[in-house]
């Protein structure tokens, strides 16, 4: 199939399958999946700038479907999502400026690669340690059957003592997040978490859901199911902003995104519905390979000089 905007010839079946797979990941883990979509689009000859912008447009559509499904399951905190979107957009702008500074200094690739490998490996190591520890300590006490609504809020983490200490910081203004079961938390902490996620998104590319989703669980104390759903809602806003800025720079082939999204729409629903059958620590443990795949791609690029 010929896509006139980018001038690329790509099989629509390939795009639908890629969209479907990324949709499952996105619906289940609350991530954009750009670390797979980018290389998958590059592999069929799409220019790098189009791969980045088009992927963002596809992420918007996939997140709408998954977030809608999560909302029906009671897994979206709208208030938290809106606040986080503000922090993410601010962080993404600063991250993009940082990249420009490093470009001028002439060492952007090496710095970004080393930072991203360190971040990916740290997240995976921490999450494997925490989720395994939680699973062992909670053995026999994890909820069985479908997990939604009230059950989804009864999440447990071995890192909870640190989360509670963060929630006790009385930095004005404090806000309540009743949908997430958080009685009071400083607005600045939420904005900071979102800003850091956005910073990495602008700095490393993609939506940085692999940073934001764990941060929401461990720093803000949001139950895993709600973190997944809320992150997806937040991605709709921040990825829409990213899509628009890339579109006016000529980096978006919306026709490719629309075709990919036909697969992602089904995948995202399967992913979102599947979260009902897994307890929070199990979702967090299953999340571990995602940042590792990201690290493997960066290491491959660093060693071969060939950008995936």
């Amino acid at each position, binding site marked *: 199939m010929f896509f006139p905007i980018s001038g690329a010839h790509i099989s629509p079946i390939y795009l639908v399958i890629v969209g479907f797979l990324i949709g499952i990941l996105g619906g289940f883990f609350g991530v954009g999946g750009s670390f797979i979509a980018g290389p998958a689009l590059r592999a069929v000859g799409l220019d790098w700038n189009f791969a980045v912008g088009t992927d963002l447009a596809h992420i918007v559509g996939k997140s709408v*479907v998954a977030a809608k499904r999560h909302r029906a399951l009671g897994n979206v905190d709208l208030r938290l999502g809106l606040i986080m979107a503000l922090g993410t957009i601010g962080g993404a702008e600063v991250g993009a400026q940082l990249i420009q500074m490093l470009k001028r200094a002439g060492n952007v690739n090496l710095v970004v690669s080393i930072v991203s490998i360190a971040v990916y490996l740290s997240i995976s190591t921490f999450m494997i340690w925490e989720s395994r520890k939680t699973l062992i300590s909670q053995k026999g006490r994890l909820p069985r059957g479908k997990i939604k609504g009230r059950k989804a809020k009864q999440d447990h983490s071995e890192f909870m003592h640190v989360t509670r200490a963060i929630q006790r910081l009385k930095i004005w203004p404090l806000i309540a997040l009743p949908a997430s079961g958080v009685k009071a938390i400083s607005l600045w902490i939420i904005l900071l978490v979102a800003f850091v996620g956005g910073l990495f998104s602008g700095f490393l590319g993609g939506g940085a859901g692999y940073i934001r989703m764990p941060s929401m669980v461990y720093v803000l104390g949001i139950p895993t199911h709600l973190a997944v759903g809320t992150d997806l809602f937040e991605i709709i806003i921040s990825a829409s902003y990213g899509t628009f800025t890339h*579109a006016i720079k000529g980096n978006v082939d919306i026709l490719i995104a629309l075709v990919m999204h*036909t697969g992602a729409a*089904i995948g995202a629903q399967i992913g979102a519905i599947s979260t009902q059958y897994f307890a929070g620590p199990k979702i967090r443990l299953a999340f571990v390979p995602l940042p590792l795949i990201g690290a493997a791609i960066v290491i491959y690029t660093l060693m071969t000089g060939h950008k995936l």
Partner: protein
Amino acid sequence: MKSDTAKTLRAFLIELAIYALLVVGYFFLVLHFLGGWLQQLEVHHRNTYGGVAILLIIGQAVVLENVTTLLLRLIRGRSE
């Protein structure tokens, strides 16, 4: 339990088949007609193209979500 799983799987496969037919029709009809117009928009009116791109992807997401939900409801309703 096993028959429930088989029922769900059957419903899902039927949904997938109907969905695939709809998607193929969508490719040939909608995208074919939109392609030229969107390309012109992308070349001459970038800001409008950005807005239209977001509206299209969100619109498609809402429609597809409703279509899949409806299909699933219809198929499950018949198989039960």
